[in-house]
């Protein structure tokens, strides 16, 4: 049991709203409790030691995707990271890179995800003859539903964006989250968009052909989404169509 340890947190602190503030690392110490996650530790720190500490959370169960941050060099969800994982008891926390910083560990992933969704049109485009809202939907094949559900599990935490060196180097690159969502609508039999419509959006340098297969997305995704297979599938499909 790891009870009784004293954990040392090195936390990135910076408030862009304050004119004279400079980015710095601040050290905190806290007594570890059984089953403690980084998320629980952060809440205790804010309650007991520093009320100005900024970080995001909603659900504390890995569903909302709000508490993503870089923990000892790995971008992941704070609520799913047990402090017992670190034998030395030293934990360094940085905000996710590649997003607008709100303050300390809090970044604006929502703004990024909204812009991405608008740019790639990440919503269902019903077939043109299917606009009558009173008509009953066609039943969906359970296998198709399962495939869609697999990709629907994305919580938009932003980890894949922060873990991707390609995305960090090229701002216009859509990243794994964009391709995952495109693949989700491409599979959906209710969506009226053709293969060419999708290729128009990601069949280029900003999409699958800009991806360098560094696999930061695959290795860090807290929901274990199949980014590697998914992007390879899209790439093969588009390379075959665009001869």
């Amino acid at each position, binding site marked *: 049991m790891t009870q009784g340890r004293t954990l040392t947190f090195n936390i990135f602190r910076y408030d862009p709203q304050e004119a004279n503030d400079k980015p710095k690392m601040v050290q905190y110490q806290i007594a570890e409790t059984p089953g403690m996650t980084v998320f629980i530790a952060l809440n205790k720190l804010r309650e007991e030691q520093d009320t100005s500490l900024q970080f995001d959370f909603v659900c504390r169960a890995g569903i909302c995707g709000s508490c993503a941050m870089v923990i000892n*060099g790995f971008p992941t969800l704070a609520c799913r990271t047990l402090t017992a994982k670190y034998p030395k008891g030293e934990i360094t926390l940085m905000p996710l890179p590649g997003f607008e910083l709100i303050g300390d560990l809090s970044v604006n992933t929502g703004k990024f995800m909204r812009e991405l969704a608008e740019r790639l049109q990440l919503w269902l485009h019903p077939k043109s003859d299917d606009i009558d809202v009173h008509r009953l939907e066609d039943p969906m094949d359970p296998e198709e539903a399962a495939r869609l559900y697999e990709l629907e599990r994305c919580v938009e935490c932003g980890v894949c964006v922060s873990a991707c060196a390609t995305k960090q180097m090229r701002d216009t690159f859509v990243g794994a989250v964009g391709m995952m969502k495109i693949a989700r609508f491409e599979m959906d039999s209710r969506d009226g968009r053709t293969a060419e419509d999708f290729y128009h959006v990601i069949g280029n340098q900003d999409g699958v052909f800009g991806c360098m297969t*560094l696999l930061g997305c695959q290795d860090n995704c807290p929901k274990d989404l199949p980014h590697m*297979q998914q992007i390879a599938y899209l790439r093969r499909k*588009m390379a075959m169509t665009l001869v």
Partner: protein
Amino acid sequence: MANNPSPAKVDLIASAVKGFSHPIWAARADRLQSASGVLLGLFIIMHLHFESSILLGKETFYRVVQLLEGGMFNSTGHGYPIVTKVFSVFILLVVITHAVVALRRFPAQIGQWHALRGHLKGIRHKDTHAWFWQLITGFILFFLVPVHLFTMILNPEIGPNLSAERVYLDNVWVLYALLLPAVVVHALIGLYRVAIKWGLVSQRKVLRQVVKVLIVYLLCLGIASLVAYILIGTELTIPVQPFSPH
């Protein structure tokens, strides 16, 4: 700022990147990069094995060279050096193709380079670090490979004594000592990436182990052959006589 490229240069880079961003060219460039890379990767593995036949003795190496240069089509059993010249031109063309399409991955702007350095420092991820080494070795190979290939196009004297003369007496071992680690690391990481990039292999852990073993093996093989040529070189008498089997 002094570090920023001139506006004309930015336009040039932008138009080059834009050229590849057209869907058809983006797809073609990606396929061409993978195909030319696989060709070069498989070639270098064979190349290292052929040249290491010197470890089995001068006569074995001599026979391998005569065979590869088309000795069976000649009544004397001697091959034609023109074969090496023509093949070197072909490989040079593949290298140029690979370099042109691979350069679009290169962080061309200072801001991209800073972003990459910051990312490598902040995020611990092995495959990204492996790619960084591919970038560095690719940059080194960009300058070294043409030197080696032009030697083979202009003066392809290959044989136990003639190769040893080049390696030891002409001091080309320096070039080979730099080329060997760069090409082995670049090629093997590249082959690994191509396999997972197009979804050819899903067992990534196994593939990673295989690649590590192959890198060590090919480095040992290359170093051993290089040492063998240097040892032969120290025993050569001037003027160097081409080896002839008894």
